């Protein structure tokens, strides 16, 4: 009998610590599948963030480093500069990348560092219990915006893909989502494209993935998908914002 479904070699045979309905697990799987398909597991180094994915290295089967909060792009820069033959990716949440690590990601992208970033945007700080992130939606209640995000006080949510696409340096910048099966194929294509550009030594590549955090949104997994679709997707538009070809 033909095997129709199997675990990617790059993914560890381990139950994860992620909550039910959390999209981190799906994104891990897509990354692992892409790494298998490109045959790069033996020369890949992942960098885990500080956030819910801090233990991501437990779920992959290749070399990993663990960064400080927001600093993964600087670590990836260090690795790539001294070992350009390695395939390097950072896996970062929105507090990690868009708040404390904003400087590191912008400068790495602007230098055109040849690594890949998987940016998980769930509009909240997951790990620390649901505080407001720079990506939190206007009016969204969090533990530090109990009356809803007030844009007079906190500004509008940061759109990382658009922001990085505005840099003059060539790069591959895409925003995708995995909240429903119909989006997943495209998300995987974008991740594969991002890694491929890196393998070709072309440019910096980042895929933002619009995600859910049912636990800290206070919703069931099903409600969370609906909330993301209705609130996040109109603001965080999907698609490629920049490719090295159309820079």
């Amino acid at each position: 009998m033909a095997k129709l479904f199997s675990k990617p070699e790059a993914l560890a045979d381990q139950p994860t610590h992620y909550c039910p309905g959390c999209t981190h697990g799906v994104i891990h799987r897509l990354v692992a599948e892409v790494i298998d398909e490109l045959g790069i597991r033996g020369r890949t180094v992942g960098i885990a963030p500080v956030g819910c994915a801090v233990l991501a290295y437990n779920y992959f089967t290749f070399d990993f480093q663990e960064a400080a909060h927001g600093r993964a792009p600087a670590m990836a820069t260090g690795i790539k500069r001294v070992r350009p033959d390695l395939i390097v990716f950072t896996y970062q949440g929105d507090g990690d990348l868009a708040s404390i690590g904003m400087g590191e990601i912008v400068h790495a992208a602007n230098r055109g560092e040849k690594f890949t970033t998987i940016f998980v945007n769930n509009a909240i700080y997951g790990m620390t219990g649901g505080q407001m992130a720079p990506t939190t939606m206007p009016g969204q209640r969090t533990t530090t915006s109990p009356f809803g995000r007030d844009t007079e006080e906190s500004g509008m949510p940061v759109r990382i893909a658009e922001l990085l696409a505005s840099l003059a340096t060539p790069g591959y910048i895409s925003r995708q989502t995995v909240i429903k099966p119909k989006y997943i194929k495209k998300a995987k294509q974008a991740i594969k494209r991002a890694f491929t550009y890196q393998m070709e030594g072309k440019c910096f590549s980042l895929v933002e993935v619009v995600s859910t955090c049912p636990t800290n949104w206070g919703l069931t997994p099903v409600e969370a998908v609906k909330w993301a679709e209705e609130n996040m997707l109109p603001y965080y538009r999907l698609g490629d914002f920049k490719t090295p070809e159309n820079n």
Partner: protein
Amino acid sequence: MGKVLMKGNEAIAEAAIRAGCLNYFAYPITPQSEVAEYLSRRMPEVGGVFLQGESEVAVSYMIFGAAAAGARVFTTSSSPGISLMSEGISYIIGAQCPAVFVNIMRGGPGLGGILPSQADYNQATKGIGHGDGRLLVLAPASVQEAVEMVMTAFPLAEKYRNPVMVLGDGLIGQMMEPVEFPDHLKTEPSNKDDWATTGMDNRKSNKRNLVRSLYLDPVQLNENNLILKRKYEQMKKEEVRFEAYHTDSRYKLLIVSYGTMSRVCKTAIDMLAEEGIEVGLIRPLTVFPFPEEAVFEAAAREGCKAVLSVEMSMGQMIEDIERSVRGACPVHWYGKCGGEVPTPEEVIEAVKQLI
């Protein structure tokens, strides 16, 4: 190669290359920017990596990433920059990676000044970053010694898988002195196969490597801290370096001083000797580990009535000296901390007030 006249910062840069370190990341700051300027020209010549990072915070993580991927790597900075790097240094210590940090100290606190200082003594020897980590800290007193210390810093960092700091005051970076470079370091970078993220295909074993400082299990975290503690105990046994000057005399007073300041003290000691006043000197070459036994023995010597710490800080080294002297005699302080280097006459004056 014979002696060449070189500015300290440039000599430090060249010394790293001769130590086989072809990877440098940095952010400009006075009084050490010449290191980056020199290496921006020199690294391309030797096929090395030069990168100006966007901040010292980022630089410390570029160093971490590169070191964790098995490369010999270093950076240079000055006091405010080292404060920013201390976050990354803490992670590097926790993850047990080798790297070299050079601090060409200027005055503080805050923006302080740009003139020479030794005010980062406590930061370097006791308080770098959060957590239970320490650095091995070498303190040069001349350009020649800075070169030698930079070249020994790399094998030491690799021996202990712990960052090593070369702690120089601004003068070490800025002054021109004749230097003779030792031969290129022969030691190959140590074998990193069992821990560095060099890519599984590039190693014999197909076990994956993980570089991290997070241990959520308290037993494991305690274990990691015990590993670090054992390393620091081993440093105390094996790495203490110091110089004793004029200690074969019947000195009544012992000076403890390091770096540029110790050279001024030597001049003062020579001048005092001509007046018939004998003073001894212990100069730590490693400030962590501190030469405790040497200071104790010299202070407890018959006839020695007092110890004087002479530093370009407000007496930060005194705690280490008092701990070493163990009450054998009183410990005093003399120094300046605004960027002026005390003159031999001023040191002589301070000595005379005590005897």
